[in-house]
């Protein structure tokens, strides 16, 4: 268990009596829980202890959830290198895990653990009290064996929060369970996403297409010719935001200060040079490149982002939901460089760029591959989860 755990709560008792009473929740040390270490996987926050609960943590506690502890994580949750996300579910120590999703981490961790993983719409769940890195893209992802549990949690945590300056004041949608009529639902398969896959991954995608078709959904092929620009936009805009966000790690208010800095600048350069790992550092330096040297290219990436968001919204006229691959078997398992990291998350990062909800479902037992993603338009979260529940229920019934 120690290998999974960053911090283990010594008094895991429910403090509230609500709809989540007794539900065991694990999270990552980039979620603030008052009194818990919140180092976010980085030396830049070494020895940092959270002073207050994050909004989401407060809402979970009030609803009776039990905070089990935090799992080891990658530096600021960027990628899964060094992360044990999903481990608490595998060990059956927790029922639900919260995993920050910057480019698909929660869905990839779910795939690794063979459980469901859900990235909500951007702006649905408060990020107040989270250690952030890419504010315009990251969301609190949820891992569980049960989509009902994910639905119950969202019922409690979604919705406006005064403490989150970036959250819209949109009312949360209704997360009650709802019925799905497959005959009235079109599911699109994105041609460009399929064609980008290796042969083996295409075969497992086809198995999920077949599963959904057999369940009675109408399957259609849709196309977004600029699909290949998703990683370009994510990598440029994400790195600029990360570089800007990481500016706060100055060893003045928190973190460890490297000795020997003769003046303020020396203190910054030494401390920050020692604080960040090589992978994150290369991301921050790349972000600085776009901020200081090629700002025009950053703006161009943001123009393309507008086009990609509009393009995905247009596809909603052709298909109610999209079926997409979740992992590309050809991508490296434990990426050490930025290019490898982006290759690993190529199938998932689109949802972070557009802010739409995405659900990872593990493959039907016996089917090839680990599983697939379903995605819907922004704020279609309750229907997307209902769709997932319908698919899983179909498997239990042993129809095929």
């Amino acid at each position, binding site marked *: 268990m120690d290998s999974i755990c960053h911090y283990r709560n010594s008094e895991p008792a429910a403090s509230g009596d609500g709809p989540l009473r007794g539900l065991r929740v694990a999270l990552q040390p980039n979620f603030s829980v008052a009194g818990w270490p919140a180092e976010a996987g980085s030396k830049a926050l070494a020895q940092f202890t959270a002073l207050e609960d994050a909004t989401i943590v407060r809402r979970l506690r009030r609803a009776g959830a039990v905070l089990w502890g935090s799992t080891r994580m990658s530096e600021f949750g960027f990628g899964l290198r060094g992360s044990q996300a999903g481990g608490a579910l595998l060990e059956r120590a927790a029922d639900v895990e919260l995993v920050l999703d910057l480019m698909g981490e929660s869905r990839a961790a779910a795939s690794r653990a063979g459980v469901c993983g859900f990235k909500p719409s951007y*702006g649905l769940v408060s990020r107040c009290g989270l250690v952030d890195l890419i504010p315009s893209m990251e969301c609190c992802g949820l891992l569980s064996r049960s989509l009902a549990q994910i639905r119950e949690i969202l019922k409690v945590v979604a919705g406006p929060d005064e403490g989150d300056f970036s959250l819209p004041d949109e009312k949360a949608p209704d997360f009650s369970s709802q019925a799905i009529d497959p005959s009235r639902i079109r599911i699109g398969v994105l041609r460009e996403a399929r064609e980008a896959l290796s042969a083996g991954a295409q075969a497992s995608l086809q198995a999920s297409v077949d599963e959904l078709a057999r369940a009675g959904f109408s399957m259609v092929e849709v196309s977004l010719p600029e699909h290949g620009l998703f990683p370009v936009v994510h990598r*440029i805009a994400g790195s600029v935001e990360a570089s800007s966000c990481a500016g706060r790690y100055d060893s*003045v208010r928190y973190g460890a200060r490297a000795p020997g800095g003769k003046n303020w600048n020396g203190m910054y350069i030494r401390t920050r040079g020692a604080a960040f790992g090589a992978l994150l550092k290369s991301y921050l330096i790349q972000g600085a490149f776009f901020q200081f040297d090629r700002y025009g290219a950053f703006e161009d990436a943001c123009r393309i982002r507008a086009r990609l968001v509009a393009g995905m919204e247009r596809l909603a006229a052709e298909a109610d939901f999209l079926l997409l691959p979740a992992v590309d078997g050809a991508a490296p398992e434990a990426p050490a460089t930025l290019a490898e990291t982006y290759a690993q998350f190529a199938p998932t990062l689109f949802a972070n760029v557009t802010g739409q909800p995405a659900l990872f479902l593990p493959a039907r037992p016996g089917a090839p591959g680990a599983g697939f993603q379903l995605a819907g338009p922004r704020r279609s979260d309750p229907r997307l989860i209902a769709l997932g529940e319908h698919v899983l229920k179909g498997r239990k019934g042993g129809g095929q």
Partner: protein
Amino acid sequence: MSPIDYSRRVFCGQLTSADTGREVLLAGWVDAFRDHGGLLFIHLRDRSGIVQVVFSPEIGSTAVCQQAASLRAEYCIAVSGEVKPRLPGTENDHISTGTIEVMVKELAVLSESDALPFPISEKAMVAGAPSASLDHVTEDLRLQHRYLDLRRPSMRDHLIARHRIFQCARQFLDSRGFVEIETPMLTMSTPEGARDYLVPSRVHPGKFYALPQSPQLFKQLLMIGGMERYFQLARCFRDEDLRPNRQPEFTQIDIEASFIDEEFIYEMIEELAVRMFAVGGIELPRPFPRMTYAEAMDTTGSDRPDLRFGMRFVDVTDLFSQTQYSIFRQILQRGGRIKGINVQGQSDRLSKNVLQNEYAKEIVPSFGAKGMTWMRAEKGQLASNVVQFFSRGEQEALRARFGVADGDVLILIADPSHAVVTSALGQLRLHLANRLGLIPAGRFCPVWVTEFPLFEATEEGGVTSSHHPFTAPDRTDFDPRNVEELLALRSRAYDLVVNGEELGGGSIRINRRDLQRKIFDALGLSEEETMNRFGFFLRAFDFGAPPHGGLALGMDRTVSMILQTPSIREVIAFPKNRSAGCPLTGAPSTVKREQLAELGLLNLGGTDKLAGADTAENRVDHLSWVSRIGIAAGERAMMEEVLDQAEALASIATENAGKEEPIWGVVPVANRTRPGTRAQRSPLAETGQLLKSAPAVKGSYFKVASILE
């Protein structure tokens, strides 16, 4: 008022009760005023001082009193009237003329003033009232309106005192047979080691004069020219990195004399310094003590020793030759040294917490040493976190060597490098003295620092001049190829240091060709190179150069020390600010394109790379700097690779960008404070909890490294 006859004018500050009954004409500025309903009191200020003038309907006409009512601060006026003693009990001890006042009969407003950007009046109009302060006024605002700032009596006093000090120096040097000679401002670059300010030549396009960093070469040429004793109040220019107390142009008293030795310089400069400091009422004790460079470094860790307080270093390396304390043992095995200071009687003010958590963990490491060892003497014992590792004998020997008494704090620094030990201990000595208030106010401790090393080692295994290559060595029979021998040579240079500040320095110069050639040989400069760089100068030594030497005293710094001002800008009429700019004139400024064209500067260098010139800054270094993230050598390849990819990504983004408006997020909100909510202080700040995770805290503040070097 009838036409003003300024020849009748008397000065405000010179009036005394002896002038009672006299009719006087005064002219100056309205410093302050008080209106007592019909009776108007004004502080009238001119350069000499302030006198109170009174407008009363019983003395002046109605017209004069009405006009007086319109006066405002800093109106320039002339008044005439009669000097009267003040009523008993209304005397003002803030001003020298506080026992009298002038009853005004006539008034002329010579010129009006706008509202002031900051208060000028410094003298309260009522006895016992507080004087105005400029504490909240930024220095740049003062510099922007320097002409107003100079009206303040304290600035005026500084400039007048500066003039007195300069006059005193001129008279003294004249009395010793020195001749004041000006040397050119437009000249060749001199080898002082700082960057030059360059002046483009219009007549010789593409060529430049340099403003002098000092008149060094010219004053030596004046000696060869037979002037024998020269001085100049010389303006010097150095384009150096910004420091709080440094100006890009500054004034020095530059002195050179022939047929003299060090003793001549010491005697004369001491006498000069004594007289200059006496202008400020400061008595310097003569003769000034002398300290060799080696002694200064060994006992204070600085070649600018501050001798106003003790805490001289004590070497205790030998006491630990058999030590069981592993940290010391390892350092000594590597040929290291252990030195310390005794902070006498301060153990009450240097708690365990301060010594360990502030000094040992934070402050001393920032001075470059790995750590420090401290011991507090209490009840006849040494107490500290490491004293258990020292044998009884070692503890006894320490107590004896430092003469320890109860209440003392011993601080030791050990390091394999002697230079690290002295440098860190030297900075620590000053830090402790400042923090503990061990520096007595009003004390002045001059010292001559002598016998500097002639050369310093370069990284390439050669040597370079510590001062400049014309400084005479202490002996001439050295082998110019033997680096070890060269590094052991002492120079005939001397620095005058007062209170840890170098006020000036100089040397006896080389006057023989063969010795000069040997020095260049040692520096690894060929005959051809030396002729290229200093040919005009060296040629002069072929014609019977006399033995000579001299010195230069930084006058801005000296005057600032004599007047005890917080910065040298307080003793300069129109100084540059800390960013080497002039807020008053806006210099430096851009210039017209035509001006550049006329000077042939437009295409200078152009876009072509100059042969041998450095290419653009490395992109990783640049990004490392702008994002303040250190990049280790082993990480560079990864960064280069990512930046190559970033270039490619930038091209893809630019090629594929359409005409859409860029978006920065997917929901239509920017980070904002919601209407109706207000910013408020976090309760975590109130309780101090916010400081809990900070690496360094002082009181209720976050502590950071120093912002300026």
